[in-house]
């Protein structure tokens, strides 16, 4: 469980951390806490698995990763673990997840494939296909972004 104070720290960290020489000290003073206390809390959050990392999230398009393609694969149930692990080894693939199937949705493994354009993404997918033997897959190209935001877990009321 998280204390109200912990929620406040998390809420602050979901925004941008200050670009100052001592960002944690500045965050701490916003909450009227000591820098050392906040640093210890962050270490604790990491140990508890709550905090994955503190770092930058890029605009991949601007950094040259123009295409950001969701790809869905139809993998026989008995091969999901094996195939998922192979997909995870590809540096161009992120978010390799197993998801449920439905009558009108047979694809059970999802990957995000990152490349500079569609051709590059498709080349990566065909490499994955070659390595796994899974050749039933589709690309779900995004044609319009309606929203992309970070989750605000504990908005301040």
């Amino acid at each position, binding site marked *: 469980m998280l204390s109200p104070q912990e929620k406040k720290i998390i809420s602050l960290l979901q925004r941008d951390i200050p670009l100052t020489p001592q960002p944690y000290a500045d965050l701490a003073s916003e909450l009227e806490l000591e820098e050392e206390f906040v640093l210890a809390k962050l270490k604790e959050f990491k140990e508890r698995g709550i905090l994955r990392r503190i770092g930058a999230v890029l605009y991949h398009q601007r950094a040259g990763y123009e295409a950001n393609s*969701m790809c869905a694969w139809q993998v026989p149930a008995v091969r999901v673990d094996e195939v998922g692990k192979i997909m995870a080894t590809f540096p161009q693939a992120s978010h390799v997840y*197993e998801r449920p199937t439905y009558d009108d949705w047979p694809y059970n493994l999802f990957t995000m494939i990152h490349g500079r354009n569609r051709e590059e993404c498709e080349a990566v997918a065909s490499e994955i296909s070659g390595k796994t033997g899974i050749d039933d897959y589709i690309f*779900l190209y995004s044609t319009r972004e309606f929203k*992309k935001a970070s989750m605000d877990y504990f908005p301040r009321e």
Partner: protein
Amino acid sequence: MISNGEAGLCELDKKILNAVQKDFPLTSHPFKEMAKQVGLNEEQFILRVKYLKGKGFIRRLGGVFDSKKLGFISTLVALRVSPEKLEQVAERVSLLPGVTHNYQREHYFNLWFTLVIPTPSKLEETLQAVQKYEGVEKLLNLPAQKLFKIGVNFKI
């Protein structure tokens, strides 16, 4: 769409973008340590990061949390929306609390969004509401059942 692509980035900027994607040190002067790795001093490093942020290469610098460990549940939802209603439905979806990503995609299922929400009953309630939006013909709830790989760092 105009893209700066990599053309707008010098070698130093690329090194900085690679450095800031890694986990920041939990020390009093985190940027000082990161600056050292790319051959700058703390002040120069901070200035350059500000520049890269201002130019829009960096979306956010902050904490990345595990929603599950925070007690939230998340899912991916695919909708089939009649094309003439798509924009209207997309705008309603974007306004729902907990919707973080919402994209039109090239498929029969043409609107895809992610939802991060505190409880299963809230999730159920939200999905039922969305299903009733005018223009929504089908809804697939696709929560991750197994994670093989989560994020990724981008070698710039």
